[in-house]
């Protein structure tokens, strides 16, 4: 069961059970609705801006523990960084995507990704990469609209 326990680290299960950022903020500058067509999981994620800085991510969604934890970790990351510039946000999403598509070759570093680094193990399970990406794709899309 070691593979399974590496995938479902405590941190992931904690975030999925007590997710951060749920409850889409009414004053979001832009929102994005994303669906995973294979399982029907969905998320609506909003970004709040202060000038050109992303200061808050909020969301509503249903999905597996990986997708819920991933959305929660993204919220936490933006919060812990005290907001992000657009270019930092874009770099973050790109880095996350590259790591998740690496089939376990490129781990996420904790320095940059915070709690979300626990999602590194997902990249070995190609069927689950979309679960982890869902919130990040919504984040990227909302930013493009904001």
């Amino acid at each position: 069961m070691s593979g399974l326990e590496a995938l479902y680290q405590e941190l992931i299960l904690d975030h999925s059970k007590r997710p951060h950022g749920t409850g889409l903020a009414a004053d979001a500058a832009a929102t994005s609705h994303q669906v995973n067509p294979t399982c029907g999981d969905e998320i609506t994620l909003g970004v709040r801006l202060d000038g050109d800085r992303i200061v808050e991510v909020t969301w509503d969604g249903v999905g597996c523990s990986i997708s819920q934890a991933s959305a929660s970790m993204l919220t936490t990351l933006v919060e812990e960084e005290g907001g992000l510039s657009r270019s930092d946000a874009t770099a973050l999403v790109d880095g996350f995507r590259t790591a998740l598509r690496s089939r376990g070759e490129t781990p996420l570093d904790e320095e940059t990704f915070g709690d979300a680094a626990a999602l590194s193990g997902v990249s070995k399970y190609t069927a689950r990469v979309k679960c982890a990406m869902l919130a990040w794709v919504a984040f990227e899309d909302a930013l493009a609209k904001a």
Partner: protein
Amino acid sequence: MTSTLDAAAVRADFPLLDRTVDGRPLVYLDSAATSQKPRVVIDAEVDFLTRANSAVHRGAHSMAAEATELFEDARTTVAGFVGARPEQLVWTSGATAGINLVAYAIGNATAGRGAPASARFALAPGDELVITESEHHANLIPWQELAARTGTTLKHIPVRDDGTIDTDAAASVISDRTRVVAFPHVSNVLGIVNPVAELVSLARGVGALTLLDACQSAPHLPLDLPALGVDLAVFSGHKMLGPYGVGAVYGRSEVLEALPPFLTGGSMITTVTLDEAKYLPPPQRFEAGTQPVSQAIGLAAAVRYLESVGMEAVHAHETALGERMGDGLRSIPGIRLLGDPSTGPGTGSTGSGAVSAERVALWAFDVEGVHAHDAGQFLDARGIAVRVGHHCAQPLHRRFGVTASVRASAALYNTADEVDTFLEAVSGIRPFFGVS
């Protein structure tokens, strides 16, 4: 005649079942998605491609004639498996293609193609098409599209809490305006054998055309489509031990003869000018272009294999597996079966559901507090292959208040031991995710 199935002997015919997943023996419980293939099916395709491959229904050389004969023998064999004559069986690439063929042919009849014979299928605004709440998307979206193209209305027959089709509601949904009634023989989520005779009788009473989705019954039950009285039916080769890329439409002769074609092109014509073409009779009228020849020959090998085991024996074996699975799942805390007969027909129902409807060995379920994907991942780590998600039936999942479920589906090659391995694993899901 009662015959029994020797599961060990059957398993030995399926080379893939020997494999392991991460060092664990494979427990394959995803046959409703696609079945495994016996050696005879794989060999039949390879034999054809290595010894007789040639274009069928064209060319005069010996091998072309041989290939044509094998291809048409396959049609006779597969038609016979469902009680039909060869001219009543149209090859398609699968059930989805088959349903689209019918829906587009009706659309073409509506545009006046094939008149006057096809006039009986022509739709007019105000007409209604009827499906059930339990459809696979393949038997839903082609009808949504047909309704949109023809200005007709798509209505549905609801499903009761116990998963049975609400036949009382069906009697009011099906009306004088109904022109088509399409429904599954067995839902790919609920596993219940639907009351075909009752629905056919309602449809016939108003002169509506019937189409049966037999994908989930053909591999599991003795099937006699003419005896069921449906006008049209579809099934899929890869779900019944056959190859991918082949399936069939069965049609009553008078229906197929009056339907205009959907796909047009080579091999379905008699005389062609630059302005127009005359079409062959069925089944060739519906088989434009190159056909899935080696796949059809493989599918014939699959049904011969099923017949050699005996469909009564297959059904009896799978019924026992299904009951073992259902009873076991019901006893695990936090497991909710979708369409559990023991829940009763439920509130809002106008009649009594079948207390113990006939079933195939298939159960979809919700694990309280654990998403289906996570449950499936847990089972996968133990070598158990199940389907997770909405199984191409989003409206049905919504009706049961979930977006996704776990589905375990058995076939003739599964054993009681495998069911027990599966049940033991399922009982470990909630503890692992800390929700017990």
